[in-house]
């Protein structure tokens, strides 16, 4: 491997710097009309850190068998140039790279290959941009399940096998995100509201009670009401004063449909897909699992201007 002092030459080699505009064919993801000077205008770092390189197969899965180690030669906010060991194998169009940060945590980025140069002794220099399929795979929006109203399900954008393969490769970590209550029959999304524990009806009347301290009578507020104010129906004491003579209690809930009496209402679910009404505690609980990746921040490697 060449010393880092020679890196300017390497950079020129990697990105095919010839002082003119780069040809489109030299870069896989260069944009039309973008010049090399545009792309390289920002701050850049020359970092000799060890990197883990995981090639990405055409179907999106990681090729763990050809995982290799490399050293970065140059890095900026848009791309990276690195040199790595490669066995006799054709280099893919995209790969994931990982590097250990100062806290010992591996951080990953997705790179689209722009340029490769085979060196002697099974080494290769690669120039790539932080873009493309591998880069897309580690974006937060594709790592979190989202609700699809047309199917009423929570899904990830890609197949589960793909995520699992990248998890096994050590790039992604499965994380528990949320717990969602679903219809126990069709797994559709239900609505929840308080209702009668017996029949599930929302037509419930709640009575308030009064506790009269002097005689310990507890009865409905309506029983205490007289034209002259509140009077205890048991001991006939009138002109009751709240706090010193009586206090209110939440009373029983009466279902107007089935006449059930209960102290607390139950959360009743109703599926918006199949219409099933069920007690809240019978809901099917779906553990929503997403994925997390410690994403590489190239700017963290760059010195402030």
């Amino acid at each position, binding site marked *: 491997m060449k010393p880092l002092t020679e890196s300017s030459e390497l950079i020129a080699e990697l990105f095919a710097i010839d002082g003119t505009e780069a040809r489109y064919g030299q870069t896989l993801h260069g944009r039309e009309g973008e010049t090399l000077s545009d792309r390289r205008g920002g701050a850049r770092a020359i970092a000799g850190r060890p990197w883990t390189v995981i090639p990405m197969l055409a179907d999106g899965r990681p090729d763990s068998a050809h995982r290799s180690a490399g050293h970065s030669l140059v890095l900026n906010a848009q791309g990276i140039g690195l040199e790595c060991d490669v066995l006799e194998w054709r280099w893919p169009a995209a790969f994931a790279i990982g590097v250990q940060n100062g806290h010992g945590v591996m951080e990953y980025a997705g790179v689209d290959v722009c340029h490769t140069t085979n060196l002697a002794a099974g080494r290769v220099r690669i120039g790539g941009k932080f873009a493309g399929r591998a880069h897309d795979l580690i974006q937060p929006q594709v790592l979190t399940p989202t609700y699809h109203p047309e199917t009423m399900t929570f899904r990830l954008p890609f197949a589960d096998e793909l995520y699992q393969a990248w998890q096994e490769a050590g790039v992604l970590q499965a994380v528990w995100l949320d717990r969602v209550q679903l219809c126990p029959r069709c797994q559709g999304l239900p609505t929840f509201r308080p209702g009668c524990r017996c029949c599930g009806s929302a037509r419930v009347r709640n009575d308030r009670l009064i506790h009269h*301290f*002097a005689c310990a009578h*507890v009865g409905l507020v309506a029983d205490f009401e007289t034209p002259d104010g509140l009077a205890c129906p048991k001991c006939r004491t009138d002109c009751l004063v709240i706090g010193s003579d009586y206090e209110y209690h939440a009373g029983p809930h009466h279902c107007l449909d089935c006449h059930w009496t209960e102290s607390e209402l139950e959360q009743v679910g109703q599926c918006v897909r199949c219409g099933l009404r069920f007690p809240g505690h019978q809901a099917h609980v779906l553990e929503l699992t997403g994925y997390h990746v410690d994403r590489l921040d190239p700017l963290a490697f760059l010195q402030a201007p």
Partner: protein
Amino acid sequence: MLTDWTHWLSSKHPEQLLAFLWALLLTDGPRYALAKLPMCLWDFGRNCCDWVCGRERDRAFTYCPSVCVIIAGHNEAETVEATLRSLWGSYPRLEIIVVDDGSTDGMAAAARRFARQHAGVLILSRPDRGGKSSALNFALPYTRAEVVVSVDADSHQGTAALWEIVQPLGNPRVGAVSGTVIARNPFTNLVTWLQAYEYLSSIFVGRLLAARLGILGIVSGAFGAFRREAIDRCGGWDVGPPEDLDLTLAIRKAGYDIAFAPYAQCYTDLPESWWGLIRQRLRWERSGVVRNHCRKHLDLASFWSAGFRLSNFFVCLDNWFFNILCMIGIWVWIICFCWAPPAGWWQILVTLYLCYLVFELIQLLATLLYSNDLGRDLLIGTVFTLVPLYQFMLLAVRLVATTEELFFRKSFDDNFVPAKVRAATWRW
């Protein structure tokens, strides 16, 4: 000493002995023994006849009303689950309502854990303590059961206890039924052992006798069944303590009879220290006879009051005479005896003690006659030789409590009832 005593005893004529032995009749033990004796002899004779004739008395459960058990408690998180476990499933269509009366130890949460796995258990929780009476009343709007059973949160029920306790309510004249309260911890120490003996003789057999005579005036709050209709007529529980005695007398006043179910047994923990026992008895005695029979429910004995019944009069008379007059009488006797000790005073005391033991032995035999657990009850009964001393201590407690209540109405300062209720209620 023994020779002295036998010489002294043999030198006395029966009239001379009776001249000082009459004082025994002022105490509870001999009085109960003499009253129980005819009942026991009658039942023993009847049992013998049944045995000779090969006749079996039918004790099948034929009455099955809807029942709601109310467990009202304050800071009973440790015991409420065991109580619920002993009740649940012991009776068909049983409703159980737990009222957490402002507990701070998570009693409602403990009961809810049980309720989540067992149907028919309703938990009511009040943020502020309002007293046991209102806690029991608070549960009433939640049930329409024909029979309401009140159970303490620190007790557990014996086999078929609920079935046993509702059977007397098959008689429409009966408004409430008292169950038997038995010690759960009889052999923890001497304090609980003596109390266990007392519970057996005064609750198990004593209430059987009172119920037979039609003068049973107490249904234990720890385990008592009430006809819902009777509760509604009386307006529910009134401010205590003791709310159980108060409601029982109100039910009697409403025209109902009170029954006793000796085999509806409930096990409860007894105080394990002398001071705990004394405090408990001071509270019971203060709020018992003076507050209820002499003041609040005095109209039970009024011949001119509406719905007067002779049995109600005897309930009051029984309590006035035995709990107040006899208590005063025995203390007068003790003071006179100490003031001017008669010749041969220690022989007199020994004679009294031995006579008391004879009466206690009769009581023990009466207990064993009705016992459904002979081994346990016989073992509890072995402590009977110490009972005269125990009764003497309780007599002193009763004197203090009655005096305090008569002159200072101390029962109204009891923190068993929260301050806001004490301030608002009437001081009878």
